[in-house]
């Protein structure tokens, strides 16, 4: 046995086998452990660690001060003082009590006065510190709902808090987009006189006619229908693209607004994801430290209330047991025989095929719904009943919502069958749900594109004259805007419906049910990943649609405000704290990344429409141009010569290729640097191990020598 039970502090009774054989421990002296640990406690490093400031008792038990070792340790402390004073730490960063810090600050400022304040940079740094802190604090106080978020985090966990934090961030983005829209789109429209009314029936052109307003009196339900589907009087309003007049300045600012909003959103999202990544991106290659993290960062010190504390303790216990079990499973999996592995993999392939089939069916359904909307609208039955007309109009949204409702629980059921560990299962479910949501939107856009450009065939009969399908869609941008508008409204309505018709009644009714079944059915949790994906989907819809429906960010701001208070109410009234803790770090890393993906996906249809599809001849600020982008070269040609040359240069290959080369070189350099740091860290770790062995060896020798020569 390597352990010596007489050791005072159990520090050196470890299980590591490299401890030197017991020549230092004979039977001749009473407590060798005390001698060894007292020698080790006198090391300068130990003394520095225990130092707590001038005049204060050091860490550790007070009884140790009574021995004559106290004199030696006080000397070590005095030496430690010297080293501390040489470090230019601000006083508040020292781990000392208040009195010691006060004394340090006074002596430090006295020293500054005597030696003259340090370099110019230090002076400036010190002068700027307080205003910088004040501005940071001021910005933090500007953030609304800070107290609500803290309360949610304390009661329901970090996952729910990250959802509401993301919601607040998206609200900020939408507010910025709306403000920009008001300045760059609405203002120029009215600046040069009121825009003209819609073209009536009497105007005709080779590209057909466009009559958005219906004539005569409209009944109330037609009004409601128009409001919900963006037709009628809403179609020729600042809400949609078609309204804006073809003025050149307006055209330029409209286009610049779209790019500015995209750029600002990109910058904000990058900023948010980088600050979440800073801690996870370290040079050292990922040595798993999951157990240490789980134990050391497990306890949330902000938790208060007996019930919550006990719940959190139960969660931690459960998680630790699951993690230990998973390690055992992983070890079992590593020794699986070939037959077992083949079986597991065949099951996985089958399940993945099933998932692919489900997704394919869902996408086909969405595609069919969008294609058949137009035909279904022509049938006389539908024309007569306004409710059916509304339903047919909303068919794509209904399909997408239904698919997003039904399939994720199926994924949750399938995932445990695949034999992965639980953390991998969660990631798989998240990825599949994400793919479902974003891809169904893409399918909708694809079928719209199909309608607009006659399947990409420029020579098709309908698209030959004007480049787009002018017979069915005289103003195709407004149609796209209307689809996005309907998606937004329907998303809001489903959110309201789910909260009011499912969650609240479930809580109320099942709360009244007796027994375990009632409790089981009545406990709902806040499903963070689903909710966050819903948020990201909603924001992607707004990004796609904001070019074609400029007021969409404003509507989305209102919607997100409503959503915030609705979700908060639902959370506090119906949900119980989560049974599985959601790591905040995952949230901060994963969600902005998915948001970036949504932004990237939304930019594809936008760029395609700007560059490749001819704009409608009868509506919008770009009518009469060959493409939407063609406005920019025209405006550039009105700028002075040097500006023109500079801007043209930016577009040439002579600029793009060197830029690409330089970026690649920088990236390769950074990666190589990171790798070399990782190697250095492993080397230093090995050196440290050796040094510790040396230290213990020397201490034992010292103890052995002092015991055989008592004069020391």
């Amino acid at each position, binding site marked *: 046995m390597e352990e010596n039970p007489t050791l005072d502090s159990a520090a050196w009774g*470890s299980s590591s086998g490299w401890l030197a054989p017991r020549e230092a421990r004979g039977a001749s002296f009473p407590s060798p452990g005390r001698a060894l640990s007292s020698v080790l*406690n006198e090391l300068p490093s130990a003394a520095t660690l225990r130092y707590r400031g001038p005049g204060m*008792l050091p860490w*550790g038990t007070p009884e140790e001060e009574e021995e004559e070792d106290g004199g030696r340790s006080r000397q070590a402390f005095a030496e430690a003082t010297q080293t501390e004073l040489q470090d230019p730490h601000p006083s508040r960063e020292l781990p000392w009590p208040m009195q010691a810090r006060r004394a340090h600050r006074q002596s430090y400022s006295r020293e500054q006065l005597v030696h003259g304040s340090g370099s110019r940079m230090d002076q400036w740094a010190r002068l700027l510190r307080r205003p910088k802190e004040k501005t940071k604090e001021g910005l933090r106080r500007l953030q609304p709902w800070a107290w609500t978020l803290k309360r949610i985090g304390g009661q329901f966990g970090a996952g729910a808090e990250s959802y509401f934090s993301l919601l607040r961030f998206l609200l900020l983005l939408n507010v910025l987009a709306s403000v920009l829209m008001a300045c760059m789109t609405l203002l120029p429209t009215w600046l040069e006189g009121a825009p003209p009314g819609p073209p009536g029936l009497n105007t005709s052109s080779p590209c057909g006619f466009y009559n958005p307003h219906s004539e005569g009196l409209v009944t109330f339900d037609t009004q409601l229908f128009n409001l919900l589907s963006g037709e009628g009087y809403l179609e020729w309003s600042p809400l949609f693209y078609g309204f804006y007049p073809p003025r050149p300045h307006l055209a330029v600012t409209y286009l610049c607004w779209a790019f500015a909003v995209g750029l600002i959103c990109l910058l904000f999202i990058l900023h948010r994801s980088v600050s979440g990544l800073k801690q996870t991106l370290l040079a*050292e290659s990922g040595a798993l430290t999951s157990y240490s*993290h789980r134990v050391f960062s497990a306890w949330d010190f902000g938790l208060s209330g007996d019930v919550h504390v006990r719940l959190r*303790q139960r969660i931690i216990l459960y998680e*630790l047991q699951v993690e230990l079990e998973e390690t055992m499973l992983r070890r079992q999996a590593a020794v699986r025989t070939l037959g077992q592995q083949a079986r597991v993999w065949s099951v996985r392939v089958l399940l993945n095929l099933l998932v692919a089939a489900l997704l394919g069916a869902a996408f086909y359904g969405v595609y069919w719904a969008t294609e058949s909307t137009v035909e279904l609208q022509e049938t006389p039955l539908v024309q007569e009943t306004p409710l059916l007309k509304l339903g047919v109009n909303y068919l794509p949204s209904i399909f997408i919502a239904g698919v997003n409702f039904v399939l994720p629980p199926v994924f949750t059921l399938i995932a445990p069958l695949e034999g992965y560990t639980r953390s991998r299962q969660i990631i798989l479910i998240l990825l599949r749900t994400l793919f479902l949501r974003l891809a169904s939107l893409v399918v909708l856009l694809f079928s719209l594109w199909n309608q607009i450009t006659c399947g990409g065939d420029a020579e098709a009969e309908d698209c030959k004259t004007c480049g787009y399908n002018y017979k069915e869609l005289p103003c195709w941008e407004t149609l796209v805007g209307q689809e996005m508008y309907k998606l937004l409204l329907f998303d809001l309505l489903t959110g309201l419906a789910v909260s009011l018709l499912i969650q609240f009644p479930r809580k109320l009714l099942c709360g009244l049910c007796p027994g375990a079944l009632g409790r089981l059915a009545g406990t709902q949790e806040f499903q963070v990943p689903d909710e966050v994906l819903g948020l990201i989907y909603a924001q992607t819809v707004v990004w796609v649609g904001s070019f074609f429906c400029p007021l969409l960010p404003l509507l989305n701001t209102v919607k997100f405000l409503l959503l915030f208070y609705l979700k908060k109410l639902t959370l506090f009234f119906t949900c119980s704290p989560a049974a599985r803790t959601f790591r905040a*770090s995952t949230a901060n890393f994963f969600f902005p990344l998915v948001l970036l993906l949504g932004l990237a996906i939304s930019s594809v249809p936008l760029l395609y429409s700007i560059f490749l599809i001819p704009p409608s001849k009868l509506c919008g600020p770009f009518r009469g141009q060959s493409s939407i982008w063609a406005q920019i070269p025209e405006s550039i040609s009105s700028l002075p010569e040097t500006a023109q040359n500079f801007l043209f240069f930016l577009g040439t290959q002579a600029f793009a290729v060197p830029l690409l080369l330089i970026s690649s070189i920088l990236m390769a350099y950074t990666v190589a640097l990171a790798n070399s740091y990782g190697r250095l860290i492993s080397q230093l770790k090995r050196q440290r191990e050796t040094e*510790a062995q040396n230290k213990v060896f020397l201490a034992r020798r010292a103890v052995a020598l002092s015991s055989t020569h008592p004069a020391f």
Partner: protein
Amino acid sequence: MGGSGSRLSKDLLAEYQDLTFLTKQEILLSMYVVSAPHLVDEQQARSGNEHTGTPIAERANRSPLSARAHKRFCELLPQEQQSVEASLRAQVSFEQILSLPELKANPFKERICRVFSTSPTRDSLSFEDFLDLLSVFSDTATPDIKSHYAFRIFDFDDDGTLNREDLSQLVNCLTGESEDTRLSASEMKQLVDNILEESDIDRDGTINLSEFQHVISRSPDFASSFKIVL
């Protein structure tokens, strides 16, 4: 000086702001809390409902009451401690601090009080110790100082390193003290073995402060979990 001032002088406030990570508002709030811990309980009892998440701001906003409370606290102290400064150094026993709702249910509450106490007998906290506590647990404290104090709190036997017993006691605090909420002995051994394997760099069987800080620096959740907000 009599017990007239329940206000901290501006210099003292500025000094506290310089020496801690707290804002002015937080320092004033903590002063109300320490001045009237017994009165806070009485008020809660009188109003009859258990606020688990009520911000102390709402309690402290009844300011005439808190000013009177500080006066009352000062009256309770012996004559020579009635100045504001002296009352700040007066020692508050652990029971009163532990009755705060933020600390009452925390499994580490005794360790926290013991770590931050500067009295020779380590059984009471002064107001400045309490400010230290709040400063370390505040939002803006550096991760270095948080990890330093976390190490102190987790070091149950105060020997400067985290050995197996410290880690076992830590895990028991995390999962609950009663018999049915503990890990089994084999699970505990496996867990502590895993932790030591991951964090003990020099393989001496214990985790010292620098190894702890190294592990914590790679944990992105630590700073957000090591927080107490009044």
